[in-house]
């Protein structure tokens, strides 16, 4: 019961923040709302007993990605965001499509029966994640390092000021 109330509060705040991200005309405000969304999702991860992911969510998304976005906003000088129209011309079509998608998915999800398992989370979950990285998931693990390397090289190439 307490869990349900808590979930509704956290989910409602997170969704409002997400709406704020989409609606805010000022890009910096949108980024701040985005930080709120990330924090809310970290709380949801903790409620789902994925403590490692809760902490990692804050470190990666708020500590790294949100900062990156804010830096990029400052670099592109559109902070005021008072440019004519935040949305493009087909925004009402997009709105209709998205609402339709949500209603369809919601309708499907409510009817879908899931065979829930009422088991406890293993006590050494973090250790098992680590073993997964170097065991069963070793190929994606190494590919992730290549991905990060390529992203680093590519982004440096793109963002560098060449003539200085």
């Amino acid at each position, binding site marked *: 019961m307490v869990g349900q109330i808590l979930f509704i509060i956290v989910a409602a705040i997170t969704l409002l923040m997400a709406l704020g991200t989409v609606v805010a005309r000022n890009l910096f405000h949108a980024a701040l709302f985005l930080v709120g969304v990330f924090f809310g999702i970290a709380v949801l991860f*903790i409620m789902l*007993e994925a*403590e*490692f992911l809760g902490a*990692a969510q804050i*470190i*990666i998304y708020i*500590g*790294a*990605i949100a*900062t*990156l976005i804010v*830096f*990029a906003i*400052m*670099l*592109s*000088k559109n*902070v*005021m965001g008072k440019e004519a129209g935040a949305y493009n011309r087909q925004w009402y079509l997009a709105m209709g499509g998205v609402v339709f998608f949500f209603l369809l998915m919601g309708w499907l999800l409510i009817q879908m029966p899931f065979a829930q398992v009422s088991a406890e*989370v293993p006590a050494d979950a*973090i*250790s*098992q*994640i*680590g*073993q997964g*990285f*170097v*065991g069963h998931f*070793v190929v994606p*693990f*190494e590919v*992730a*390092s*290549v991905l*990060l*390397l390529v*992203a*680093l*090289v590519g*982004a*440096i*190439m793109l*963002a*560098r*000021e060449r003539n*200085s």
Partner: protein
Amino acid sequence: MLTQQYGLIGVFAVIAFIFPIVTLAFTWLIRPKRPNPLKNSTYECGIETVGDAWVQFRAQYYLFALIFVVFDLEAIFLFPFAVAFNKVGWFALFEAIIFVLMLFVGLIYAWKKNALEWQ
């Protein structure tokens, strides 16, 4: 067990967030309020402000944030590995070393391309 620990963090988070707000509200009640246009103007050592403060920044800041993001992810991958370290074998250690060296190559690249210089 989990609920017991995170419950405290949750309650404490609420208190730690409300406490500064309450103090700020309290000072708002007792402090003097005599604003004037000069006092409220932007402080730049007495010189009149020129243009908007939200100026465009150089890409330098972005490059540091970029390298940081990549290494932060590396840390997130390596922390569970460090926890599981006693339970995995030599092969796993080599995999982790390859993982780290791959990103070290990225650091060397950034170094060579002068992305680590603050100009």
